[in-house]
């Protein structure tokens, strides 16, 4: 059984006992445990079920490479699926549940799949479920979807109860990994004065070295790490963060750090995760190496674990993974596990070493001296046991698996050698090279990821670089730290690499399949990817079927695509594929490493920006007044504008109708502050505006206003608005609400990149003014009641503007109309907007004043046949389509869009043109509907001859009115055309003039 033992447990606080639950059973652990070590301490070896066959699975590893030990934790707004037991620190009250089984972890119906596994080889989905056609959606897919997936989905009704935050950090040298190499590299870099950040993904510094032991500078590894940590912590230019993973390395040296602040203390206040966006001149990845499993039959039975993990559990957590552990290996390192187990008083019946017999290395001699039986040139034929290892069958490695001996045991420690963690190096384009001696890929220092200047910005220290002994790790880390600091602009300082004693190790032997000649039956029980259930036979089948590229084989078998991203399976899978293809591994190549290194929470990616602060809201100065007076809001870009002001007892539609009638009959106020206001100034301002607008603007007289159209260089209408000439060199250009920023940018672009010698500048003053449209027959009376400037028809003509005062406010007034009524638009400094609005409401009280919203604005303009950017235009419409030829200057040689409008399709008489549309029965045409012509086109689609661009019920005309673009429309006045609705009805509409109200245009001119 796996249990807590008396010795060991360097990370535990044995005075602090914690209780937690697993699948509802209350268990005990210690402070310092991970969930994995605590479960093992309670003999809970079975922890989950695999993805495809629902095989029983236990923990294999002790770190973030763990493929099997995934649980769901928390409840309600703190529920989270797919939590790794090996990286979950134990806390009081932790509740974990295993995943992917029904009805229970012990008895899973889905395990039937395992019995059928012979019928479910790699790619079987592609070959089955083809007939009958409808069965995929209705039968097969639902079954497969329910069987797949891992943890349960969080409930839709639970909002995330945690918070998250983002940090920005800048440093000279970022060291990812707080193991021996990382600490030493940080020390060497920091000695130069460089600002250094060290990020360690676990809660503890020192990495493997403190478990594996050794002597450095005369100290034990543990003491050395304690000392160097103290040294670094004492330096002002060094920041050390534990529980912070280097998640990804991105272009130009942008590195993502993922810090887990409260996962281990969920009741603590503050954000749960913190995402660091780090800019470092140089990054050192000291990310260590990951042990590889060996490929033998039954290597997924719970109790079969990485040798290093078994060692970690004994040394760090005082947990034995079994009473009798068989060690199986192709290298010396696993002997450390055997020795550690023996020292802890546990039984190691045998070390099965696949390497041929030969001279004993230091490790081997030490193991033998402890009385451990070492079986050279042997392997495991198969592991016995179902939900738990009960023994192993031993065979000759060179053979086909004939069983020589059975050894009873309840744990197997396996080691297939070590693979450097090259993920972060590779994220941004660092290349790899094959290291024959370690049978692994390591970083090719000649091809690093490149920064903004083409410089390499990542270097790799220690085991991540393929170093295997303390001496070479320390030397490499020291030099790496120095070189990085120098590259970051610091003067190198002599830092001597500490001295270490290394045992002489015998070379590892690549063993990709155990035994070497394993037949199909063994190979189909030999796992490569535990979580996704990919076996040796699957990769071989992929190769047999021509999926010979590594990417094909990966995708066909799903090798390495599980949540562990193939940390354990990559090299083993590649080796099997290469072997099947009879080619060396480097020729097969590797798959691409994608960020993040291990999964990071979506919550942390979102950061603080959620709920009310998800995105900024732009408010006009009168925003609060609108809110208090029933505004039904419409988002317009970042702004919110009142769609209508709803009074009690009214629907939104009622409010719109009321506002529309009242504005025509009495007095309406519109908050027009969001309209873009751009000052264009300079000696060449007139010439510039002549290029930007289709109209002639340079001839506009000071004091006058003109409606103008703007086109893109591609000819399409992009914006419109009223331009006022302020003085000889100054124009104020109004844009649409959405256009303020884009048109400002458009102007700047042409000024800076094409006509940079023209003497003009542009300022966006949109937010400097509050602007109110005072509209209706009583508009003048209202302004007169305020008192001040003369607003009479004689003193202040239509399409003029004046500066003056009204009710004591300094104003700039424009006599313009987008409603067809008598209308003034009054601009005041933004800070006085609310006061001015209040003053207007006060004087308007006797004049029937009502505020109106955007929908009323739309109806008023549609009654007049005025176009609206975004309604009548959609990026494919030119002014000529809208009957706006009067606003296109014939005199100008050039303006933006002119050349484009000379192209064949722009001149075509087949373009749809603007008309008014009146339904025969006075109903409202469906917005966006299309008019149909005769028959169908070559692709069988109904021929369309026009479409509705705006459609409203007009309360003033008491009928539906619409505008639309129709083929030959202006030549077909009076004709009735048909618009099929999506409601199944056909709508008949007569083509009429788009001006429905006051066609003579008398009302604004009073």
């Amino acid at each position, binding site marked *: 059984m796996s249990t807590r033992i008396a010795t060991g447990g360097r990370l535990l606080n044995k005075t602090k006992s914690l209780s937690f639950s697993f699948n509802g059973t209350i268990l005990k652990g210690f402070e310092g445990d991970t969930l994995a070590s605590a479960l093992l301490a309670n003999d809970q070896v079975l922890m989950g079920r695999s993805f495809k066959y629902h095989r029983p699975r236990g923990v294999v590893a002790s770190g973030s490479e763990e493929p099997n030990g995934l649980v769901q934790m928390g409840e309600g707004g703190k529920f989270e699926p797919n939590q790794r037991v090996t990286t979950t620190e134990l806390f009081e009250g932790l509740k974990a549940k295993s995943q992917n089984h029904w009805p229970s972890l012990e008895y899973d119906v889905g395990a039937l799949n395992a019995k059928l596994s012979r019928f479910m080889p790699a790619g079987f989905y592609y070959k089955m479920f083809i007939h009958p056609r409808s069965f995929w959606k209705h039968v097969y897919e639902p079954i497969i979807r329910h069987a797949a997936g891992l943890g349960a989905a969080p409930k839709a009704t639970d909002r995330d109860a945690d918070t998250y935050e983002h940090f920005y950090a800048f440093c000279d040298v970022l060291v990812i990994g707080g193991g021996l190499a990382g600490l030493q590299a940080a020390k060497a870099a920091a000695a130069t004065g460089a600002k250094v950040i060290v990020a360690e993904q676990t809660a503890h510094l020192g990495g493997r070295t403190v478990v594996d032991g050794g002597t450095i500078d005369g100290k034990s590894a543990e003491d050395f790490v304690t000392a160097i940590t103290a040294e670094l912590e004492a330096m002002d230019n060094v920041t050390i963060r534990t529980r912070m993973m280097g998640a990804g390395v*991105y*272009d*130009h*040296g*942008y590195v993502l750090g993922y810090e887990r602040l409260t996962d281990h203390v969920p009741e603590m206040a503050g954000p749960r995760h913190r995402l660091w966006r780090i800019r470092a001149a140089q990054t050192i990845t000291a990310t260590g190496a990951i042990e590889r499993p060996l490929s033998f039959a039954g290597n997924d039975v719970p109790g079969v674990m990485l040798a290093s993990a078994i060692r970690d559990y004994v040394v760090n957590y005082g947990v034995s993974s079994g009473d009798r552990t068989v060690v199986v290996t192709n290298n010396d390192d696993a002997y450390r596990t055997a020795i550690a187990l023996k020292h802890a008083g546990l039984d190691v019946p045998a070390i099965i070493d696949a390497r041929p017999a030969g001279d004993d290395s230091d490790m081997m001699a030490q193991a033998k001296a402890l009385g451990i039986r070492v079986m050279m040139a042997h392997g495991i034929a198969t592991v016995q046991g179902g939900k738990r290892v009960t023994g192993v069958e031993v065979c000759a490695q060179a053979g086909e698996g004939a069983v020589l001996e059975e050894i009873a045991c309840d744990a197997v420690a396996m080691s297939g050698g070590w693979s450097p963690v090259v993920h972060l190096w590779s994220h941004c*384009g660092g290349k790899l090279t094959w290291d024959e001696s370690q049978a692994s890929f390591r970083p090719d220092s000649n091809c690093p990821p*490149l*920064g*903004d*200047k*083409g410089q390499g910005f990542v270097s790799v220290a220690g085991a991540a670089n393929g170093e295997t002994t303390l001496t070479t790790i320390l030397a490499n880390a020291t030099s790496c730290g120095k070189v990085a600091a120098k590259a970051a602009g610091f003067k190198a300082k002599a830092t001597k690499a500490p001295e270490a004693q290394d045992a002489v190790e015998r070379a590892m032997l690549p063993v990709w399949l155990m035994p070497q000649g394993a037949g199909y039956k063994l190979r189909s029980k030999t796992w490569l990817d535990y979580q996704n259930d990919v076996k040796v036979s699957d990769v071989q089948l992929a190769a047999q079927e021509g999926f010979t590229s590594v990417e094909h084989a990966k995708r066909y078998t799903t090798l390495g695509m599980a949540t562990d991203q193939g940390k354990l399976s990559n090299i083993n899978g590649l080796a099997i594929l290469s072997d099947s293809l009879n080619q060396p591994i480097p020729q097969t190549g590797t798959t691409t490493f994608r960020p993040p290194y291990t999964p990071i929470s979506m919550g942390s990616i979102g950061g603080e920006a959620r709920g009310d602060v998800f995105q900024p809201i732009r408010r006009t100065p009168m925003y609060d007044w609108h809110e208090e007076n029933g505004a039904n809001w419409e988002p317009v870009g970042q702004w919110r504008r009142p769609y209508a002001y709803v009074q009690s007892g009214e629907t939104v539609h009622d409010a719109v109708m009321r506002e529309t009638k009242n504005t025509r009959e009495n007095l309406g106020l519109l908050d027009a502050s969001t309209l873009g206001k751009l000052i264009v100034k300079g000696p060449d301002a007139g010439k510039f505006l002549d290029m930007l607008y289709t109209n002639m603007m340079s001839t506009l007289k000071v004091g006058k206003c003109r409606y103008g159209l703007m086109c893109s*260089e*591609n000819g399409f209408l992009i914006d419109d608005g009223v331009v006022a000439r302020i003085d000889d060199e100054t124009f104020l250009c109004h844009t649409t609400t959405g256009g303020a920023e884009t048109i400002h*940018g458009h102007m*700047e*672009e042409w000024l*800076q*990149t*094409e006509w*940079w010698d023209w003497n003009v500048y542009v300022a966006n003053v949109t937010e400097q003014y509050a602007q109110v449209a005072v509209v209706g027959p009583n508009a003048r009376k209202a302004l007169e009641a305020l008192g001040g400037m003369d607003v009479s028809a004689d003193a202040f003509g239509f399409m003029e503007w004046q500066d003056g005062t009204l009710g004591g406010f300094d104003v700039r007034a424009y006599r313009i109309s987008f409603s067809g009524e008598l209308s003034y638009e009054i601009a005041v400094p933004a800070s006085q907007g609310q006061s001015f609005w209040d003053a207007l409401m006060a004087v308007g009280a006797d004049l029937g004043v009502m505020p109106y919203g955007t929908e009323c604005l739309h109806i008023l303009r549609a009654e007049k046949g005025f176009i609206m950017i975004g309604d009548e235009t959609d990026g494919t419409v030119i002014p000529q389509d809208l009957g706006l030829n009067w606003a296109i200057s014939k005199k100008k*040689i*050039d303006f933006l869009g*002119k*050349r*484009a409008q*000379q*192209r064949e399709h722009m001149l075509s008489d087949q373009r749809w043109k603007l008309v008014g549309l009146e339904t025969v029965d006075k109903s409202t045409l469906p917005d966006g509907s299309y008019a149909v012509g005769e028959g169908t086109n070559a692709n069988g689609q109904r021929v369309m001859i026009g479409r509705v661009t705006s459609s409203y019920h007009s309360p003033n005309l008491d009928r539906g009115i619409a505008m639309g673009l129709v083929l030959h429309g202006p030549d077909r006045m009076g004709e009735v055309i048909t618009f099929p609705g999506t409601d199944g009805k056909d709508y008949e509409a007569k083509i009429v003039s788009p001006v429905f109200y006051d066609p003579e245009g008398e009302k604004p001119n009073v």
Partner: protein
Amino acid sequence: MLILNCPCCGITAEETEFHAGGEAHLKRFGPESSNEDFENYLFMRQNPKGVHLERWRHNNGCGKWFHAARCTMTLEVFGTYSAQTYEPPKEICDIISAKRPGWSWGAFS
């Protein structure tokens, strides 16, 4: 996340402070131009794998447009320079030539 230096205000900042504006050194063709010239000007792009001369605007900063010479394969930035020019300055060309011998961009090399 690219880093660019704005030659107008001197600030070195991240990509999110800038707005990419497509190929640089396009010659504008107006009303008297041929169909082919106009099409080339508006739509045809070099889109090279390698050295790309391009426009950027420091839109969350000084608001100015500038040009950058950048490699589309490695994303290395060879340099940035004023947008108020018809051709890349010699020092930029020299930097590119040193790193990408034999490069060319239309008439420039």
